[in-house]
């Protein structure tokens, strides 16, 4: 089972490899990837350097080209594929059917992974990607329970990758327009959810307020930790009840599922967080490396180390973690 770590820049990429990642995934410096943030990602020069660093150490590089190609800019997505292939990427992570079609026809020998943004949640959808684009891997959205993942893993004609740790999208990825409804920009179209340029913080008599494009997302009392106003993680009013109507600020953590995921034959566990610092990447990579190695030695008596959980909780939103949809009760 591969440990696949995120890298938003060259230092994070090196850190990931140095701390035990089997592979890293990165994005280009434009809107062709789903973490299109200022100061993040790889230009052509950095891309080549990153590829060399990874390959010299016998590891793998995946390039995420996982937003949906704009009607008047398809060439940009095709060029992203060309660039990634030119520097020798080991895999392309793609969501758009048109881009997948292009990659499959032009570069049949370069691995194609179906991005989580393609919302592939069942066997027939997996077959669709296998039949049409001969894909090598499908990344499952964070909406399935462990039982559902097991069932898919048993029958899938394509190896599966799952999300293991990091910020939690509570909606089926690629099927969420909440951000564009509020701001005009969504993960699918611009590669960002709840973009920072629409965020406003304001001290008021009622407390510290966070707003997204003027809509009040949350309001914090002095003893509360304020978090980034991702719009699905604020507190809202449903018939007089004020609560986290969609989700609390929390992160996914599936350390305890490692033996199960391994037994199912999941080929890769993915760490979320290309937007996070090298320090985050270092801690997460190191912890997951230890956990996976210990499980490989002896899956039967694998136990999650308390120290691992503490390290990961400290890196999580609201300092809390959840099994998310893997655990049916969360649903």
């Amino acid at each position, binding site marked *: 089972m591969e440990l696949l770590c995120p890298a938003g820049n060259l230092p994070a990429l090196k850190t990931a490899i140095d701390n035990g990642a089997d592979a890293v995934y990165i994005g280009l410096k434009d809107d062709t990837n789903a973490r299109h943030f200022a100061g993040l990602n790889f230009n052509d020069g950095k891309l080549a350097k990153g590829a060399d660093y990874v390959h010299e150490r016998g590891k793998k590089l995946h390039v995420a080209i996982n937003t*949906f*190609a*704009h*009607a*008047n800019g*398809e060439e940009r997505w095709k060029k992203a594929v060309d660039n990634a292939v030119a520097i020798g990427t080991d895999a392309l992570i793609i969501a*758009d*059917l*048109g*881009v997948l*079609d292009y990659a499959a026809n032009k570069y049949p020998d370069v691995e194609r992974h179906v991005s989580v943004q*393609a*919302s*592939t*949640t*069942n*066997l*027939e*959808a997996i*077959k*669709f990607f296998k*039949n049409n684009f001969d894909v090598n891997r499908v990344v499952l959205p964070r*909406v*399935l*329970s462990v039982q559902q993942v097991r*069932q898919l893993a048993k029958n899938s004609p394509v190896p599966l990758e799952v999300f293991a740790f990091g910020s939690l999208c*509570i*909606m*089926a990825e*690629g*099927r*969420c*327009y*909440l951000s*564009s*409804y*509020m*701001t*005009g920009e*969504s993960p*699918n*179209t611009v590669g960002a959810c709840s973009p920072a340029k629409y965020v406003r913080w304001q001290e008021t008599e009622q407390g510290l307020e966070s707003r997204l*494009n003027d*809509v*009040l*997302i949350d*309001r914090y009392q002095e003893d509360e930790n304020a978090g980034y106003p991702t719009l699905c993680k604020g*507190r*809202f*009013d*449903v*018939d007089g*009840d004020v609560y986290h*109507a*969609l989700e609390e600020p929390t992160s996914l953590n599936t350390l305890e599922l490692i033996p199960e995921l391994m037994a199912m034959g999941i080929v890769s566990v993915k760490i979320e967080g290309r937007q996070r610092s090298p320090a985050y990447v270092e801690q997460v990579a190191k912890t997951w490396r230890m956990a996976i190695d210990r499980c490989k030695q002896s899956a039967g008596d694998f136990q999650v180390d308390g120290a691992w959980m503490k390290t990961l909780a400290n890196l999580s939103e609201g300092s809390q973690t959840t099994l998310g*949809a893997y655990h*049916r*009760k*969360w*649903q």
Partner: protein
Amino acid sequence: MKFSLGPNLFFWPKTDVEQFYQQAKTSSADIIYLGETVCSKRRELRAKDWLGLGRELAQDTNKQIVMSTMTLLESPAEIVTLKKLCDNGDLLVEANDLSAVQIMHDLAMPFVAGPAINCYNLSTLKVLIKQGMTRWLMPVELSGDWLKTILAQAVDENIRDKFECEVFSWGYLPLAYSARCFTARSEDRAKDDCQYCCINYPQGRKMNSREGEQVFVLNGIQTMSAYQYNLINEVAQLNDMGVDILRISADSEKAFTQLDKFKTQLSTPTKHTLATDKECNGFWHQIAGMSVA
């Protein structure tokens, strides 16, 4: 230009559904979509009931009847039901997930690509046409300019006659799908113990900001816009662009009035003022979806 009645996205008691479609028979809709697209636990009508209702509508009217299918399919049982709906023998099918596209392709049957299929560009459109798509409804977050670009490219590539183009034009917008049921959560219950509570909210549950601004509607595992999308002022533009069908979502009986209004708007254009605290058209104008241009 034709007008369609989209599938009802809420969960209503069987008698209400039947009554609604009795009215739909005499409505001005040219096309009626029906079926459960949100949650497989909603079983007031099962697949065979929906198909029965669809066939009854086809028999009693001259309207085209289309079976709409689920969007987020996670279990083998859901796929079994989906296959039943797809392989129905006579009625057209709206695919809302690539699983349905795969099944329709295996059956060598034409299909409609619904709004939850991520088709953002001409290359994707071509992939879907190759699979058997004969009608395309673009993702609701896309704008008029975006659509215009794709339609012009389709003309250039000589494939515009391969598909009809339908646009979601009125109603609460389906915005997101989750593993979690937000309606059950709003009643402090897990999805496995939802007690089918969606049935108590025939218009979903409004989720407001703490300042009272309406933000979203909770509809089971689906999150919708709190404002109703309304492209009434864009009808002429849609027609000029060559859009073939305008969809009025079956939010409530008001949809029937809207069908009439939209039809009238085509023949006798009038400037309508949208209520900014109830309606929106931002997506069409490539600004925040909840706003009015």
